[in-house]
């Protein structure tokens, strides 16, 4: 059967792939296979590059261990200021980072998260310790978030399936609950899309970070929506950082592995914003904004605009010659 997704380096773009295609066609012609091409989709990942010190005058590399002060790198032999460049990791430049060292210091999940977050998969990736730490801090935040959640005794609800993912009573939700639920389902939709098509792992990780922030800032930590949010965060995180996701999942009282859970589907109803931001303009110039119900028609929008504090300040005592309403976007007052 053909490979659905093949992943590998661009250095094998010609011969290996050509030979594989050739093999497939010959075996097909021998009646042994029933398809034409071995690899339906191909992803060629970019290089991993390490921080490299180079003397711009001599063109020579200086090994990192010989650089005394990394914030002001100088050549220990000539005293020249060194240039910092990113080049393919190699022994001769001593700019490599050993996977084992990173795993020992930060763990495999952080290494994975950093690699996925730092660059789109087909682009070159610059190894940057500060960004590795950034991902470690993010996982620490997730850890605290879920630890607090378990500490508050809410994990019982998660384990019992008492969250707002099933039969969500949308109309009864408070505004903070609705906002959080929208953030949850926006993340589900975005991460799912990023893992289809073009494989944008980097933006998927950003979405996870956004969801984590939304949960941290939520004003409804005792709500079933919050329980749904924790559950969604862990499930969406599972393919990226499988260990921490599993640990937090099972310590929340779930007996089965998180990796056997079904992927999440975004609820279209949750994505609908019930308020929009209406821009108020006076003579074509933006003077402010106002929150209005999303379903308001043209007349209602004009009414909301007229009554807004922003508009009042500018139109009071003046003759309104014309009002231009762009539904869903803005109201513009032309005054005399």
């Amino acid at each position, binding site marked *: 059967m053909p490979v659905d997704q093949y992943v590998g380096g661009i250095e094998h773009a010609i011969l290996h792939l050509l030979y594989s295609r050739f093999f497939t066609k010959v075996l097909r012609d021998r009646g042994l*296979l029933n398809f034409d091409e071995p690899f339906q989709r191909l992803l060629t990942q970019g290089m991993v590059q390490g921080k490299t010190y180079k003397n711009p005058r001599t063109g020579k590399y200086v090994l990192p261990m010989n650089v005394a002060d990394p914030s002001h790198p100088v050549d220990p032999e000539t005293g020249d200021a060194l240039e910092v460049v990113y080049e393919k990791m190699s022994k001769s430049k001593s700019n490599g980072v050993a996977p*084992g060292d990173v795993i020992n210091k930060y763990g*495999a999940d952080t290494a994975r998260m950093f690699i996925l977050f730092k660059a789109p998969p087909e682009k070159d990736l610059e190894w940057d310790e500060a960004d590795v730490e950034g991902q470690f801090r993010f996982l620490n935040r997730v850890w605290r978030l879920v630890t607090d959640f378990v500490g508050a005794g809410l994990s019982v609800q998660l384990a019992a399936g008492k969250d707002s993912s099933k039969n969500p009573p949308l109309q009864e939700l408070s505004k903070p609950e609705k906002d959080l639920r929208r953030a949850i389902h926006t993340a589900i939709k975005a991460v799912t899309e990023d893992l289809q098509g073009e494989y944008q792992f980097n933006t998927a990780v950003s979405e996870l970070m956004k969801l984590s922030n939304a949960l941290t800032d939520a004003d409804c930590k005792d709500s079933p929506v919050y329980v749904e949010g924790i559950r969604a965060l862990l499930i969406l995180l599972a393919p990226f950082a499988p260990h921490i996701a599993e640990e937090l999942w099972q310590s929340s009282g779930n007996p089965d592995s998180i*990796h056997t859970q*079904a992927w999440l589907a975004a609820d279209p109803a949750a994505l609908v914003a019930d308020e929009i931001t209406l821009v108020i303009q006076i003579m074509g110039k933006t003077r402010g904004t106002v929150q209005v119900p999303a379903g308001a028609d043209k007349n209602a929008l004009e009414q909301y605009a007229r009554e807004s504090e922003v508009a009042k300040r500018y139109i009071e005592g003046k003759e309104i010659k014309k009002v231009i309403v762009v539904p869903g976007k803005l109201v513009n007052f032309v005054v005399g």
Partner: protein
Amino acid sequence: MESRYTPAAIEEKWQQSWAEQGLHKTAADISKPKFYALSMFPYPSGNLHMGHVRVYTIADVIARVRRMQGYRVLNPMGWDAFGLPAENAAIERGIHPAQWTYQNVAQMRQQLDQLGIAFDWEREVTTCAPDYYRWTQWIFLQFFQAGLAYQKEATVNWDPIDQTVLANEQVDSEGKSWRSGAKVERKQLRQWFLKITDYAEQLLNDLDQLSGWPEKVRLMQANWIGKSTGAQVTFKTETGDELIVFTTRPDTLWGATFMVLSPEHPLLETLTTKQQAKVIKAYQQEAAAKSEIDRTAEGREKTGVWTGSYAINPVNNEQIPIWIADYVLMDYGTGAIMAVPAHDQRDFEFARQFELSIAVVVQPQGESFDAETMTEAHPGEGVMVNSGPLDGIPAGKEKGQSVEAAVQWLEQNGKGKGTANYRLRDWLISRQRYWGAPIPIIHCPNCGTVPVPDRDLPVCLPEDVEFSGRGALRWQSWTPGSMCPVPPVAPQPSARQIRWIRSSIRPGTFYAIPMLRTIARRLILKKPTTGCR
């Protein structure tokens, strides 16, 4: 639950738990849709680097998401384990390549597990394991039966001290062996090829199906295949032999004023006149010592020697001299070209160097080129002149232009035919080294090349390998009575047990192609036995 996030406290624990639960095994439930995720197999160097971490992490995320989305995911791992580095490492360390390889595999498997990659290790393949290369050999036999595997003389880098073939990378810039320091010779050896050129057109056309591939990769493949269209034209020699050339510009045939053959051309024996025999021979030896890159480099001074013979230009019956020059390669095209100096820069330089005649057949409008005074070739546009039936037709490859008219005229007059040529060449799979899959062909003194019967696969590598002081691995030539005289090379005990795939690889159900490193070993039969009548 720990209050602090301590990866070391949880990662190994879950890795063990997942392995015990068999979480990463390929699901047996065939009602689910399948998803086959594959990462390119690494060479088992023993150490995982960041490039590996990146590729396996990417593939792992995709595999894990698809599994959660309800697919029956196959995410196997394998090792591209044959090849020179293992052999060289073995020589340096004085251990068997198998031992070195399996140690590295065990080490790298552990490193991958540390990353939490969800491989189904029950489907692991190692290309140097007899259970795997049995299928490499089986596939070779499929090619052989289809007439797509054949033997041909080809030029190799030969180290006269180590008595071995060297890869191009093992020859330094001065043409010396990296190991022995000997001056490397170019030698003709009989080697096995797979006939990929038969599939050139399909491999090119089917790139259109690959919408899920990066455009860049498809373009690289198309360029490598390198299709050009033109015509095949037959030139007769004075001796009655036929020289076939391929040209993308058959319209310029009337301007062909000499021919150039590769120094390795087989007809040279009959074409070379007595007077020229000595210089031809000397030139051939010189060319044999040069690399292909040196021979075809642009801008270098043209060298060549006249064979003493002539051919007849089939379109105007003119006698044109036959030369040899090293820039013509035997294994590209037909190993012979027609030279049109007025309109090809390389031919022009050659003609000026050796004072050969030049005939203008494309005249640009508003100018008047003259063979005597021109200082460089004119490969551009114009109108056909001095070309009999083509005169007056605009020169070019488009519809209604000279190339189309020329092909038509050649076919009508039985002088040639329209055809395509490809840059792609047949795939040389022989390596005169130890660490690779033996080619399952018996070279029988009585009946020639005989394929090993399927039931006798795998043909195993011999174990009685000697490490010579020079470094090359040497071994006794062996006489396979039952085709597999030695037990499979056993993996050395390592931290984890080596698992073998036995029944998983069945064409049609599981299908993976390694970066094939097939090594030709001649099975020398003293007495014909199995499979040899």
